[in-house]
């Protein structure tokens, strides 16, 4: 992992999206680990107020503060941050306007509450603004983070989320807000950003991935790779799968095999096992056809195996290794 070229050299902001339930947060965390090679620092950011990162790394809920949560398999540091829109707004006002007491005054009259909860879209402006700040932050001439990985909103919302600053630029024709919105959009549209999409080999997630690729490209946002999550290894041979799908597996042969294995299965059990084999065959066939659909998108694609035991820290490292090996990091 040391200093081998990855497919995404020069990318500083990795945005990870995907349909709900595809494992976006897990993939984002694995990518942040994978990118933390020797001497590097990565920041993993979440914006949906779910504390998903804390759950994954088995740590207490994250405050609005960058905390070290782990060390990557390559030896680099992984930091994490859960962005809170209200805190982000106060921080922003302080940083750019040095508002101090006046900032607190805004909170008292309800302006902060208005901006972060009632005014739709402001949340996204603040969240993307904070991500921009972290990605661009420097200490001297060196960037503070070599890579920022954003556990982003789902595919259905991602284009709107990333494009919110263009909307702002449309509202504010001049002035400080316009300037800020323009800088954020130009980072998000630059080769320093890649929007990766996580999918499963199922119809709806693959369809949403295809729609996402089209929408992002249309909005001028850089589409990154596709991460195929929870890939199954077929447990039967092709000929057996074909027979299983047609309901033509040799029942007598199976019963004989079970006896040879010393496994006692009472009568309906053997048929139940044949049903399981048929379901497996249907699933493998479905994945195959979805794999073809993913291929037509012509994006770099990375596979992550299905983890039947669930995801813990050890599993995250395993997934990170998979991503490194395939050149995503």
């Amino acid at each position, binding site marked *: 992992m040391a200093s081998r070229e990855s497919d995404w050299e020069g990318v500083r902001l990795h945005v990870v999206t995907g*349909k709900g*339930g*595809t494992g976006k*947060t897990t993939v984002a965390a694995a990518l942040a680990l994978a990118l933390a090679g020797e001497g590097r620092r990565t920041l993993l950011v979440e914006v*949906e107020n779910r504390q*998903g990162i804390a759950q994954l790394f088995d740590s207490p809920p994250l405050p609005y503060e960058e905390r070290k949560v782990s060390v990557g398999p390559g030896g680099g540091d992984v930091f994490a941050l859960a962005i809170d829109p209200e805190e982000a707004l106060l921080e922003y*006002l302080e940083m750019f*306007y040095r*508002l101090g007491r*006046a900032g607190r*005054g805004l909170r*008292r*009259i*309800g*302006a902060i*509450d*208005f901006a972060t*909860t*009632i005014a*739709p*879209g402001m949340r*996204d402006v603040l969240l993307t603004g904070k991500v921009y700040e972290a990605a661009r932050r420097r200490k001297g001439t060196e960037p503070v983070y070599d890579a920022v990985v954003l556990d982003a*909103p*789902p595919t*259905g*919302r991602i284009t*709107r*989320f990333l494009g*919110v600053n263009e*909307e702002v630029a449309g*509202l*504010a024709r001049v002035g*400080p*807000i316009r300037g800020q919105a323009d800088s954020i959009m130009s980072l998000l549209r630059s080769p320093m950003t890649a929007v990766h999409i996580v999918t499963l080999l*199922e*119809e*709806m997630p693959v*369809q*949403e991935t295809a729609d996402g690729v089209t929408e992002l490209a249309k909005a001028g946002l850089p589409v990154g790779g596709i991460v195929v999550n929870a890939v199954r290894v077929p447990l*039967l*041979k092709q000929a*057996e799968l074909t027979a299983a799908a047609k309901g033509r597996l040799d029942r007598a*042969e*199976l019963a004989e*095999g*079970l006896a040879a*294995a010393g*496994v006692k*299965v009472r009568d309906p*059990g053997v048929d*139940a*096992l044949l049903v*399981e*084999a048929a379901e497996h065959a*249907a699933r493998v066939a*479905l994945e195959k056809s979805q794999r073809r659909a993913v291929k037509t998108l012509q994006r770099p694609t990375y596979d992550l195996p299905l983890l*039947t*035991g*669930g*995801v813990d820290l050890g599993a995250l490292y395993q997934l990170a290794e998979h991503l490194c090996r395939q050149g995503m990091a």
Partner: protein
Amino acid sequence: MSAAPSRTLDLDAVLADRSTRIIVCCGAGGVGKTTTAAALGLRAAEEGRTVVVLTIDPARRLAQSMGLSELDNSPRRVKGVDESRGGSLDAMMLDMKRTFDDVVFAHATPDRAQMIMENPFYQSLSSSFSGTQEYMAMEKLGQLRAEDRWDLIVVDTPPSRSALDFLDAPKRLGSFLDGRFIRVLMGTAKTGGRAYLKVVGAGLNAMTSVLTKVLGGQVLKDLQAFIAALDTMFGGFRERADATYQLLQARGTSFVVVAAPERDALREASYFVERLGEERMPLSGLVLNRVHASGATGLSADRAAAGSETLDESRSHPLAAGILRLHAERMRLIEREQSLRGRFTAAHPRVPVVDVAAQPGDVHDLAGLRLVGESLAGA
């Protein structure tokens, strides 16, 4: 398999109960929420109820399965439904902007409405900003209910935690309208036409200068013009938000939380259950989609795995070895799903649950939806 929950969710009873007028499906994204809403609607219709299903951004093929090809914001009759018991099924997809426009036209004079439509803030607010969707879904629900053409409305909610943001709408609108922020904003708006200037004090002037500094003069002016134009509508907004909130709390409404037996989805389900409880919203129970089962639970994962190893060693019966491995994996998955389910039911013992078996493929047509409906009913 571990202990069953204390209660099973009987959705057929919910559908058959004529006093059930609204069913709200909520849950994390990717758990089959929209499919569940559509399947419940179809089942109720075929049992004889007059149903409309309101969906938010359905997957294309699901929309096609109900014959919905366009987003036109008005309910359409779904063809191919068995109407022999006197029921029918309408379905629609939410068009956020048109719903918002309708609200404006309903509450403002034509001149005022025109001004609002042309304001850049309104254009962004109504069409592209996220967050508006949640509010508009509830607005549409209120409209459908007021039309009184259906005896059952099934609503799908947007796929995020903010799906429950609409519960906060009355409170938020209230605190905003009674708050000082709006007075500060309007204090400098000479176009407002109201006597807000009276309340402007030295402190407020300082605030406006801060706002000018942060927002820039032009943005502040547009925002003020927008608020001023909406001014006459705020009362109406609040009334509607209050009415919807009461409608949701009322007898006749039934919340169904949808999840899959995965850690994240069940954590979100717990959040929804708790939140609905806090707001005293009527919760029917949890639909647990994609639950795996086996007809050979008597054969444990360990014994199946050991058996496959025995066969591997003797290099015989590869088919049986493969199937035993398959079964071992299936049993481990079932064990894990049952333990996650058990954790949920232990934390929420009074929430009835119904399991829906995992389907090998997606739903493409009414026949598929009908099958899902049967599973939902525990049939």
